[in-house]
């Protein structure tokens, strides 16, 4: 026993002792810096430690991001950038939150609006307005106007002086994916423009022996439905949730009716079941972020034709969808580092870089002019569906980013499950959700 224990523990220690760690290659403009004791790297005379960028990208997206960072570092920027993987959004948020009391923050972090709102309260993040309008390192009016207004304005924080606290990073929109072949078999020549048509097509496809809409429980889909029925999620003063409006009730009624008639069905929670069913030609519709496109393309290959469209809308309402995605925040460090961090953010949102980022990952370019770049042009030419999400961008609106919204999202998903189970009336579900959401928001504001 003791021998076994001794063996195991010494093996562990030995194994570690044997291998010397190879330091990773350093960015070009970085001289050897003393060992860091925190994520923040205070500048020392003539020695600038790289800007630390906490992100959540993995796999092929991370490769593209690394390429962009490498190219930036090679361009002799004021301070080079170093990527640091911080898990998913939840762990990244946790990581930032525990770091704030120590005051040793990373230079750049990826963040959603509700996270940023918390960072602002804790004075951990800096507004970007001065940098944006800086004569030397800022952006011209033309350049700012080139960024899609829906994307740009999403980075202004109305509750905090309407200042820019972030800049766009991973942008996508909620899209309807459809199988034209199945629609044709059911007697339809085009994808649905309205939710009424959507219901009809779902039911017809189901009658023809296939399935209609594979529902994955998702708060953003509900938000999008409410907006596309012509409703609002929050009141203008951003204090009241409006799920009990006619549009909110219509959204839950749509799901309730779809499941009741068999035109819609629920997939396993947090699975890719809808994507799987769509990729195998079993269902006609799924609603997912535009970032799903490359994965579906990979799954389906040339097996059958498929396409994307902006999600349907209510009768008398215009097309609208949800704008997704995280942004980059510059954290409070030193003026020199903050300026340098902004310069990376600016580079990341420049025309060619955003085009490269978009075509390499499935996120959307943030600039209108990106559509004119060669790389995006040839990407669009490859397949018409590659430009659908880009075309939907002018109709995209962000979801609320108020404090407490993460908790509200859970309530929305519970309400969606209730609507699908069919045991509660849609108007009751909508009213109850509005009350719960308002209670959560009230508590969060205190």
């Amino acid at each position: 026993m003791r021998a076994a224990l001794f063996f195991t523990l010494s093996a562990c220690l030995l194994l570690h002792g044997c291998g010397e760690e190879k330091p990773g290659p350093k960015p070009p403009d970085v001289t050897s810096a003393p060992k860091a004791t925190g994520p923040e790297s205070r500048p020392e005379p003539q020695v600038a430690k790289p800007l630390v960028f906490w992100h959540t990208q993995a796999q092929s997206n991370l490769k593209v991001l690394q390429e962009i960072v490498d190219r930036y570092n090679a361009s002799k920027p004021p301070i080079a950038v170093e990527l640091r993987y911080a898990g998913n959004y939840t762990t990244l948020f946790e990581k930032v939150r525990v770091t704030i009391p120590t005051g040793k923050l990373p230079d750049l972090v990826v963040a959603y609006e509700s996270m940023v709102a918390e960072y602002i309260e804790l004075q951990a993040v800096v507004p970007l307005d001065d940098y944006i309008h800086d004569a030397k390192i800022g952006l011209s009016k033309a350049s700012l106007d080139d960024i899609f207004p829906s994307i740009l304005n999403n980075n202004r924080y109305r509750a905090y002086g309407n200042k820019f606290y972030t800049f766009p990073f991973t942008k996508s929109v909620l899209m309807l994916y459809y199988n034209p072949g199945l629609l044709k078999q059911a007697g339809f020549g085009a994808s649905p423009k309205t939710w009424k048509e959507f219901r009809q097509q779902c039911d017809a496809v189901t009658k023809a022996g296939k399935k209609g809409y594979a529902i994955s429980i998702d708060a953003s889909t509900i938000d999008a439905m409410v907006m596309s029925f012509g409703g609002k999620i929050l009141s203008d003063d951003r204090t009241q949730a409006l799920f009990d409006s006619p549009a909110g009730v219509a959204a839950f009624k749509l799901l309730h009716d779809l499941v009741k008639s068999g035109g819609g069905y629920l997939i396993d929670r947090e699975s890719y079941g809808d994507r799987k069913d769509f990729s195998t030609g079993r269902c006609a519709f799924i609603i997912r972020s535009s970032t799903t496109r490359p994965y579906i393309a990979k799954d389906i290959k040339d097996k059958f034709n498929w396409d994307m469209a902006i999600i349907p809308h209510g009768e008398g309402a215009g097309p609208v969808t949800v704008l997704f995605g995280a942004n980059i925040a510059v954290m409070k460090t030193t003026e020199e580092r903050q300026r340098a961090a902004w310069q990376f953010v600016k580079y990341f949102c420049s025309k060619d870089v955003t085009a490269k980022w978009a075509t390499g990952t499935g996120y959307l370019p943030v600039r209108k002019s990106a559509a004119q770049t060669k790389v995006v042009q040839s990407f669009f030419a490859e397949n018409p569906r590659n430009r659908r999400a880009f075309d939907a961008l002018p109709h995209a609106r962000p979801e609320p980013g108020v404090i407490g919204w993460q908790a509200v999202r859970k309530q929305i998903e519970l309400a969606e499950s209730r609507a699908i189970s069919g045991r509660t009336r849609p108007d009751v579900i909508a009213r109850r959700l509005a009350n719960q959401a308002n209670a959560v928001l009230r508590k969060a504001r205190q």
Partner: protein
Amino acid sequence: MKTRGTQRAASYLILTLGVLLVAFPFFWMLSTSLQTPEETGATPPTFLPASPQWQNYPAAWGSAADASSERASFTIYFRNSLFVAGAVTAGVLFTSILAGYAFAFMNFAGKRLIFLLFLATMMIPFEVALVPNYMTIDALGWYDSFAALIVPWTANVFSIFILRQFFLTIPRDYFEAAQIDGCSHWRFMWQIATPMAAPALAAITIFTFLGSWNAFLWPLLVTSSPRRRVVQVGLSLLRSEESTNLNTLMAASAIVIIPVVVLYLLLQRRFIEGVAGTGLKG
């Protein structure tokens, strides 16, 4: 005779079902790790791959390294995890033996109160202590170091409790006899009590090693550079929001559980005695 036979058959049946229930996730992991991406997504699910895709294993090892384009390799994560889990286990065994022995064999003022206070700390959730722990690590200048991964975990009240209970089962006569022969506490603890507590030590070893090996959030919080990354964080790099290659993820998971399985096999017999002996059932 007949009833005995039936009873035996029934108990075998129940045990077999139990084994199947426990073994199935492992079978599923191994089977998925050898499937093609199409097979992992097929409906009805694939139980056995048509032809085992052994290349998923080197691919998993490579892709985990590759995916973290921060240019660290999975080999480093694996070595870090072995070192950290090994050191934490050694630390916990050392501190638990000392504390468990003191609580069982020595008399000192406030012994009961201190023991109760120790136990009370078990009620504090990890999340509550997260920020203060992080601030301590930062104040010590240990951010992104092995010390941050190891030191906070080298004392564990649960292990102290297990060992104290085990030491209490050792008759005091042993200690008195040893004392008459001039044996000190120190010597009695290491040469007599500790070897007798081998089953409890085996249980602690496995629990601690497993806990440390599987740790994800703490290592993610206190480290930043790929050179300090542990396997669980490395594994998370194989997942992304939109897509997870189940076959490579399962292949990587199969590799990652090897050290724990080996440790369990080494200590299996003692471990079972230890768990049964302390009245703690998994």
